[in-house]
């Protein structure tokens, strides 16, 4: 698969502190790439290196087949976590300034801003000062400025912080639409539910090292535990549970159904298939619930961090 961005063994030290230790990631073209990790893991440093705000000590960054150069600034749209706008400047003027810093001409910038302001229904804000807007409103302006120059690569650092659910959804839809239009998105966050919804690929950074990466589905497969949630109605729940316990590893289930049935988490042994379990269950009662327990990004995150001893 074609990669838009690759980093090869990128390291960065601040004095004695190692912020990144030989981190290599590959971001496929047209994907939404989740860059995950606990606070202080080095995500922001990596993003800043990609944006050429800081230079790596060793290692290199390849964008679209070329080593990272000055002119690539125009190919990247970056929404930092620490974000803000000039408070005393008018929205329109400010957006024009930032767009022109990204290399757009005056006319181009104006035209695209009109389009985006219409699209996000913020047209009336053009002559307002930032300090008159609420935080969420300012974030919308910031989002527009980030995507305005149609960059190949979009980098969002915690894009949803400061948005209410409605606007967060709006932005999420816009991100997905941008992806469909061919942009590649790098997405750094702690909010795992948005990772599930958006990301195709993820990389997990922990204590300056990359500890996990790949397509999200594949990672989930390696992390799956062969546990199935089971809901079943039988004549005698106690007997059934004892029978099951002798064959499988059981644990308490935590899901909701409408009826009053026996709820269990059943872990299959390596040589058994889901069909075997299902066949056995149907012979003993009426199965109302049978779901494979897929590890959530959250689980993977926590487990991977826990398993890594660095």
């Amino acid at each position, binding site marked *: 698969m074609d990669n838009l961005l690759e980093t090869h063994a990128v390291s960065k030290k*601040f*004095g004695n502190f190692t912020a990144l230790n030989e981190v290599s990631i590959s971001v496929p073209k047209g994907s939404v790439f989740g860059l995950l990790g606990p606070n202080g893991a080095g995500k922001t440093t990596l993003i*800043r290196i990609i*944006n*050429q*705000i*800081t230079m790596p000590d060793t290692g290199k960054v390849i964008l679209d087949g070329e080593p990272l150069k*000055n*002119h690539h*600034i*125009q190919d*990247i749209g*970056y*929404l*930092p976590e*620490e*974000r*803000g*706008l*000039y*408070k*005393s*400047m008018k929205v329109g003027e400010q957006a024009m*300034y*930032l767009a*022109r*810093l*990204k*290399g757009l001409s005056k006319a181009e910038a104006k035209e695209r801003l009109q389009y985006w302001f219409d699209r996000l229904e913020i047209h009336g804000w053009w002559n307002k000062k930032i300090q008159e807007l609420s935080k969420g409103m300012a974030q919308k302006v*910031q989002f527009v*400025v980030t995507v305005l120059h149609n960059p190949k690569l979009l980098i969002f650092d915690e894009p949803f912080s400061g948005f209410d659910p409605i606007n967060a959804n709006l932005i999420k839809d816009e991100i997905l639409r941008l992806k469909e239009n061919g942009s590649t998105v790098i997405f750094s966050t702690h909010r795992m539910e948005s990772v599930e919804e958006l990301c195709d690929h993820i990389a997990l950074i922990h204590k300056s090292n990359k500890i996990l990466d790949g397509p999200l589905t594949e990672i989930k497969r390696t992390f799956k535990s062969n546990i199935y949630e089971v809901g079943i109605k039988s004549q005698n729940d106690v007997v059934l549970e004892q029978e099951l316990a002798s064959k499988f590893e059981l644990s308490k289930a935590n899901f909701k159904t409408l009826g009053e049935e026996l709820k269990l988490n059943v872990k299959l042994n390596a040589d058994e298939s889901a069909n075997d379990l299902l066949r056995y269950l149907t012979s003993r009662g009426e199965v109302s619930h049978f779901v494979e327990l897929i590890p959530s990004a959250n689980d993977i995150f926590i487990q991977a961090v826990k398993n890594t001893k660095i």
Partner: protein
Amino acid sequence: MNHLPLIIQREYLNKVRNKSFIVMTILSPIIMIILVAFVAYLSQLNNNKERTIVVLDESGFLEDAFQSTDNTTYKFIDDLSLDEAKRDTEANGDYGLLYIEDVDDFNELGEHIKFFSTDSPSLMLMSDLENNIQKELSEMKLIEEGIDIDKIKESKLRVNIAQESFVGEKTSKIDSIAKLFFGCAAGYLLFMFIIIYGNMIMRSVIEEKTNRIIEVIISSVKPTQLMLGKIIGTSLAGITQFLIWLILGGVLVSIVSAIFGVDVLQTQPVDQEAMRQAMENTNSPEFQSIVIAINNLPIGNLVVAFLLFFLGGYLLYSSLYAAIGAAVDSETDTQQFLLPILMPLILAVYIGVFTVIEDPHGTVSTIFSFIPLTSPVVMLMRIPFGVPIWQQLLSFGLLVATFLFAVWFASKIYRVGILMYGKKPSYKELIKWIRY
């Protein structure tokens, strides 16, 4: 991609359109001129106050010593006792009573004079009185010794030493005053400019940090470019403000002097007489010598050196101000870093004012006109007195080298500092940042 013009444009417009900037631009000269005019007006009032001094001369030696003037009237009494005279003087509300005891020998008179007044008398008045008495007594002494006073008066000849350099340039005392004026004006202008607009640059860097916009901006432009854009944009705004002040000041001076009837520009007593004569008669020697003095100044050198040193010095300091702005989070944290910048600046002005006036080519002023942080101010003050070209070039070379170093240093601090939040850095940390 070169975004410098764009950044300069934004910084400039943002400054110039700022409300407090506009208010300051318009109000400052008005306030200044009203203040100066007010002070001038008050001191005139004070001078015009009339006062009467009662003189009780029991000795009879000093009857001719006191001539009444516009402000001071001397009233002689001789038929009262001291106590009565004191009572009368106080009752009449006169300023004071000068009492001269009755002595036979005027040689001893000096020790037998007293002055009585309600409040302690002004220093000026007392020295006036003492001078008058001393003059009178001296003359009496001379007469006693049999010396013709008229001859002494005739023997006082006017001396005016003509100054000329070895290469034949004629100079004069007025010349030196003109040089001093131009030198000090240039040095002081630079000092003010650095303080006002350096601070403005620093604040605008801090503003970007506190607004958290900095990361958005530097994902588009290089920090060094942003810093230079800020410095240049703010400076242009500063020059605009200065020009407006100059024009507005000129207009206001003429308006105010018309209203108050005070010539604000001539509050200084030194050249007042010469100026007035010069106004009345352009052929007077004083006016000519002023014109000559100004013509004598190395105008070409002065203008070029002014532009270069002003620019060099200003840019050097403003890059340091920008670095400070980048290193801290809020203006209250700037104090510890501002001090080392302000020290050499203030030192430069002091050295300029005290040593350059004393001896423009002395060791102290020469040395400090080479040290980069003080050289712009000190050199600007020295140049009107004629500084060898090699010295100017050397000093300017050092200044440029230091400026380049300062920009490098500042941009290092800037790169790292603008992304650091929260903690106030120490000097040690700043040194560490340079190596990042």
